[in-house]
C-alpha cells in the first residue's frame, strides 16, 4: 500500500467513523447515567429519515438537521418514559424502538416521496458540503504531513469536525463539571445522588435527551453528509457497532474516539479488499472484515484485554424509597 492509497483509506475511515463516534458518545452519556441504550440504531435511523425528508422539502440542510435531532429526540423521550418514568426494561425498550424505527421510517418516506421508501435525492444546499480547513494550500506541499492534512483532515463536512470537538467537550463535561460528576454518580449509585438531594429522574432524563441529540447528529450526517438522501435500513447496524465501540472504549470519551476510528478504519478496509490482500499477501474474505468489529468486541467483553466493567447501576430502574 503506497502513501496515497493509505491516505485515501484514512479519509474514508474518518467519514465512516463520524456517525459511529457521535452514536458512541450518545451511548456514553446514556449508559454513564445508568440507562442502557440499545436503541442507538433506531434513533439514528429516525434522524436520518427526518433530516433527509425535511432537507429535501425545504432545501435547507440546517432545517433538516433540526428535524433530524427532533426525530431522534422523540424516540429518546419514549425510551426515557419507558425506562425511567415507568421503570420498564431498558434493553427491551431499546430493541422495541429499533423495530419501530426500522418500519416507520420506510412508511413515512414512502408516503411522502413514493420512491420505494427512499427520500428524494438531495442536491445543493440540502446537503452538507465539504469545507476546507485553513492553510490547506500552504501546508499541502510539506512532505508526509502536508498531504495528510489536505487529504485526510481537510475537506469534510462540518459535522465531522463537530463530532471530533465533542470528544474533548464530553471529557470536560463528564470529568470537570458538577453535572458530569452527578451524571457518573447516578450511573454507579443513584441512591447516593438521591440522598444528596439531586433528582435522579431529572439527571437520567437529561442524559437520555443528550443521547437523543447526539444520535440526531449521527443520523443527519448519514443522510445529508455521507450520502445524499435516506434509504431503508441505511444505518445498517452502525448503532450496534457504536455500542460495541463504547464497550471497547470502556465507557470513556477519548477511548471512544480511538475505538470508533479503529472500527471506521475496518469499515473502510472492507471496501478495499485489494489493499488488504496486498498487505497481508493472503486473500482475507470481506465478510471477515465486516465481522471484525464484533469479534473484537466479544474478545474485549471476554476480558482478555483488561476488564470492561459497565456502570454499576446500568440497566436497573431506580425506585425512590418512601
Amino acid at each position, binding site marked *: 500500500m503506497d502513501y496515497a492509497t493509505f491516505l485515501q483509506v484514512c479519509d474514508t475511515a474518518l467519514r465512516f467513523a463520524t456517525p459511529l463516534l457521535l452514536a458512541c458518545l450518545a451511548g456514553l452519556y446514556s449508559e454513564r447515567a445508568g440507562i*442502557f441504550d*440499545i436503541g442507538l440504531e433506531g434513533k439514528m435511523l429516525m434522524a436520518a429519515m427526518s433530516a433527509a425528508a425535511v432537507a429535501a422539502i425545504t432545501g435547507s440542510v440546517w432545517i433538516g438537521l433540526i428535524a433530524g435531532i427532533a426525530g431522534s429526540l422523540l424516540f429518546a423521550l*419514549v425510551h426515557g*418514559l*419507558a*425506562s425511567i418514568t*415507568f*421503570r*420498564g*426494561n*431498558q*434493553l*427491551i*425498550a431499546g*430493541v*422495541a*424502538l*429499533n*423495530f*419501530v*424505527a*426500522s*418500519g*416507520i421510517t*420506510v*412508511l*413515512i418516506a*414512502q*408516503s411522502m416521496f413514493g420512491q420505494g*421508501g427512499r427520500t428524494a435525492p438531495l442536491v445543493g444546499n440540502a446537503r452538507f458540503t465539504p469545507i476546507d480547513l485553513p492553510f490547506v494550500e500552504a501546508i499541502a506541499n510539506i512532505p508526509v504531513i502536508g498531504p495528510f492534512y489536505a487529504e485526510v483532515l481537510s475537506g469534510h463536512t462540518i459535522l465531522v469536525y463537530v463530532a471530533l470537538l465533542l470528544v474533548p467537550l464530553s471529557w470536560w463535561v463528564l470529568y470537570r463539571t458538577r453535572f458530569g460528576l452527578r451524571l457518573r454518580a447516578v450511573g454507579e449509585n443513584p441512591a447516593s445522588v438521591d440522598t444528596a438531594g439531586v433528582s435522579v429522574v431529572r439527571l437520567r432524563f437529561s442524559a437520555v435527551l443528550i443521547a437523543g441529540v447526539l444520535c440526531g447528529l449521527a443520523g443527519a450526517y448519514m443522510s445529508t453528509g455521507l450520502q445524499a438522501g435516506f434509504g*431503508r435500513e441505511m444505518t445498517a*447496524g452502525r448503532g*450496534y457497532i457504536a*455500542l*460495541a465501540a463504547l*464497550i471497547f472504549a470502556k465507557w470513556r470519551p477519548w477511548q471512544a474516539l480511538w475505538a470508533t476510528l479503529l472500527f471506521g478504519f475496518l469499515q473502510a478496509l472492507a471496501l478495499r479488499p485489494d489493499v488488504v490482500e496486498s498487505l497481508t499477501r493472503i486473500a482475507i*474474505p470481506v*465478510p*471477515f472484515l*465486516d*465481522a471484525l468489529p*464484533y*469479534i473484537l*468486541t*466479544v474478545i474485549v*467483553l*471476554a*476480558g482478555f484485554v483488561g476488564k*470492561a466493567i*459497565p456502570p454499576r447501576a446500568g440497566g436497573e430502574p431506580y425506585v425512590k424509597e418512601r
Partner: protein
Amino acid sequence: MTKLPTWADVALVPLISLTLAALVSAGVLLAIGQSPLEAITVMANGALGSPYAWGYTLYYATSFIFTGLAVTIAFHAGLFNIGGEGQAQLGGLGVALVCLALPWPHWTLALAAAMGGAALFGAAWAAVPAYLQARRGSHIVITTIMFNYIASALLIYLLVNVLRPTGSMDPASATFPAGAHLPQFHEIPLLQNLFQRMGADGLPRLNAQGLPMYQGVPANVTFFIAIAACVAIWALLWHTKLGYEIRAFGKSEKAAVYAGISPFRIIMIAMLISGALAGLMAINNVMGQSERLLQNSASGAGFIGIAVALMGRNHPIGIFLAAVLFGFLFQGGAALGLETDIPIELRTVVQGLVILFTGALDQMVRMLLAAFFRRRGGE
C-alpha cells in the same frame, strides 16, 4: 403498589398492551393517509380468509413458536437472549449440511437427523455467549447481538465461497435431495382436502391422471413438532427439577446459589436449550419451505421471538397464541404489501410497538389497572 388479581395480570395486561399497540399502529396509518379499517380487512382476508391463507399464517407461526420458546427459556433463567436470529441461521447451516450429506431414503430419517443438526448448531452458537456470561460476566445481551452479526457474516462467506454449487450465481446452497422433502399441509392425507382446487363449476379440479389438485402451502409437519416443543418446554419448566432450578435462578440468583444451584450450570443449560430451540426453527423454513440454504434465512424470525415471548407472558400456551397472532401479522402484512399502497414494513412497526407496550411499558398498564382496582376495592 396494589397487587393485581391473577386473571388481570395474566390476561388483562397483555390484552390492554396489545390494544394500545393496535391503536398506535392505527394512528400511524391515519397519519400517512391510509385507512386502518381497510388495512385490517385486507390483513384478515389475506391471513385468515381461506385455508390457503392459514397455510401461510401457520407456517410463519411455526417459526415464531420455536424462537418464542427460545427467548422464553432464557428469560426464565433471567437471561435475555437476543441472539435467536444468529442461532436460527446457524441452525439452518446444520440442516443444510445434514440434508446435503446423504441421499436420504425417507423424510422421517432426514427429519430426525436434520433436527439434530439444527439443534446442535443453534446450541453451539449460543454456547460461547453463555460461557462468557457464566464464567467472565460478559453481558449476554451484547454478546448475543455481536454473535448475530458474526453469524450473518459467516453465512455470507460460507454460502458464497463454500456451499454454492459450481456454476451457480446465487449465494445459496444446492437444493436438498428429494428424500429430504417434508410433507406440507397440502400433501398430508385428509388435511390436504382443505386445499383442494375447485373449478368454476364448484367441483374439484382434476389433473391429467384424474387425481384432485391442491393449492401448495408452505406450512408443513414442523408445525406439529412445534406444538410438541411447547408441551416439552412446559413440562420441563414446571414439572422437572431442572425447570425448577432454572426458574429459581431467574427469580433470584442469590437464593438459588444458597439453595445449592450452580449458576454456571443453569446459565449454560438454559442457553444451550434456548439456542437449540432457535436452531430448530430452521427445519420449518430451510428444510420445510426453501429446501436449500439461503442468505438471511431466518429473515427476522429470531427477533420476532422476543415479541412472541413477551406477548405470550413466557408461557408455552401464551407463546402458541402469540406466535399465531404474529403469523397473522406477518402474512397479513405481506397481503398489505401486495394489495394496498401500505408498505410491508408496517408489520415491523407493529412488531416494535407490541414489544414496547408488552415488554417495556407493561408497568404503565399495570399502574393504570392498579389504580382502577384500588378505586373499585375502596367502594
